[in-house]
């Protein structure tokens, strides 16, 4: 299909704890179109984040994933490490759930950027790397001195924007945002979301936006998947989900909106 960047079919993911296998994602299928923001909403433990991890190829033994996640005609789930590493971050990047903790605590912000420049974009010129870091930080409204700071020296909102800048470093085809604003206060949340939306519009990337926050979904997404206990219970355009919810869980969710 033209315009489709990612196609997920019959995705099943099993987590293994103490030798027991538990299915956390059941027969999930969806497609992601170019430039689209697909929201995935659901309660905690519904398997949203697990789908995000699977797309990054981060489901490792003893856990396993079945089905297919097709990107550029190849199945990510059966890809070898070498091919996977070429896709990771260059084509698909991710903003992690606990973005607060997803920065290495013992290195400065600039080191995070530089290792991506070096390994993913083959840029080695120090001055060029510095300039690019400044530009990326500026694009998320952060001052240049942030690159000389350690993660713990930044506020939550600044760290969050840093992580967004990192995810957009290579202008990837797909950005997976896994609850990128969960730990932030409402005002900072919408500030961060507006920056994210603007940056996506500039780079033309698609996004999978995972959250349990319906307001954030309404602000960001074009299309929505509603998940409950590992299954997709409803999907469709944002307006349809909000105005004519069919599933009981979706109805409950929509009823929380104060109109």
């Amino acid at each position: 299909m033209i315009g489709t960047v990612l196609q997920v079919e019959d995705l099943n993911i099993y987590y293994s704890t103490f030798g027991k296998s538990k299915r956390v994602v059941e027969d999930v299928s969806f497609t992601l179109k170019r430039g689209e923001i697909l929201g995935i909403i659901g309660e905690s433990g519904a398997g949203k984040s697990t789908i995000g991890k699977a797309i990054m190829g981060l489901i490792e033994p003893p856990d396993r994933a079945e089905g297919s996640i097709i990107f550029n005609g190849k199945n990510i789930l059966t890809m070898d490490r070498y091919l996977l590493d070429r896709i990771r971050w260059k084509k698909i990047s991710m903003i992690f759930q606990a973005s607060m903790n997803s920065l290495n605590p013992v290195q400065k912000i600039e080191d995070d950027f530089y290792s991506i420049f070096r390994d993913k974009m083959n840029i080695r010129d120090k001055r060029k790397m510095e300039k690019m870091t400044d530009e990326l930080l500026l694009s998320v409204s952060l001052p240049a001195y942030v690159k000389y700071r350690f993660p713990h020296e930044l506020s939550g909102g600044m760290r969050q924007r840093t992580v967004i800048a990192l995810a957009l470093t290579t202008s990837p085809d797909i950005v997976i945002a896994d609850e990128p604003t969960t730990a932030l206060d409402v005002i900072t949340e919408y500030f961060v979301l507006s920056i994210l939306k603007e940056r996506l519009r500039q780079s033309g990337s698609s996004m999978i936006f995972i959250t349990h926050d319906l307001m954030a979904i309404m602000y960001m997404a074009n299309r929505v998947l509603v998940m409950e206990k590992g299954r997709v219970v409803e999907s469709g355009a944002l307006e349809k989900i909000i105005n004519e919810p069919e599933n009981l869980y979706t109805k409950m969710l929509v009823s929380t909106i104060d109109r």
Partner: protein
Amino acid sequence: MATATGQPITKHGSGAFSNLWSSIKQRYSARYITRRIIGTILVYITTLIIIFIIPHLMPGNIAYQFVSRLLAINPTISPAKALSIVEAEYGLNHPLYVQFEIYLKNVLLTFPPNFGNSFEFISTPAMRIVMRALPFTLLLIVISQVIAWGSSIYLGVKLALRKNHLSDKVAVPSLYMLYSIPIFWLALIFILIFTIDLHLISSSISVSAGAPFGKVMYALAFPIAIVVVSTVPNHVLIIRSATVDFLKSDFVMALKAQGLKSSTFTLKLMKNALLPSITQFFMQFGYLIGGIYVIESLFSLPGMGTVIITAAIEYDYPVLEAGLFVTSVVMIVSNLIADLLYPLLDPRVSYM
């Protein structure tokens, strides 16, 4: 909004010396440093007292020991006269508290601290004998620990990354086994295998202080290998378990998702593993020195260990005291350095 306006645009802690200094100022308060230094001085004084007491607790009279040694060299001297001369020379005819006062004056107010002349090498100050041996021991410690530490960080991280693989399952129990072997026994086994059975290395290469560097290294190679083999297991196990812990954390997941080159990935993990290994290193430093002294004496290397053990056997009190004193100072200084170093290496720690 969470923009940080009004913050000065400074570049701190980025390697150069001026930045190091601003980093130090940022991480420690003057109060912390003062407290730490006062603590160090208290430990130093306590050590001095213990060093003074130990020889007095040893069996036998110090002056008699010395006079009997003199008599062995020259039987014609009169024991009574020699005894009074020796007692006057070393202040042994005074009561204990006066002796302590003289001792403190000699150690604190003179530089280098004066412990008197050696009983064995009669005209040589004890301190000179010890200081001649010190570089040798420091060389042994530094070289063996640089090798052991570097390889342990690499091995520990690699093993943690291979958790649940066969190599990890074999390596961990064997490392525990090696770790539980005392260093002197390990040394004897090494000598048995490499010297007696395989005739590969001579276990007694004689070398004196001040020998050419190449010759010193030749003599040190075998002892260094033993110290490395004996210290690596502990380091590796600590670093492995610390790494296994932080491999579960979010930032490692994020690093994996970035699909960086595996060398970049490992280097970043090694940087994180550095911190627990430093704590471990300084906690083990005392045991390490003890082990190294035994090794030196076993291989008759002219280091601190040989000097101290010989002095203890020969009742050479001044040298024994000087040796214990220098060892204590090395320990105290290294602990102080460790305490001050840690916040510089771990940006999250600050001492206020």
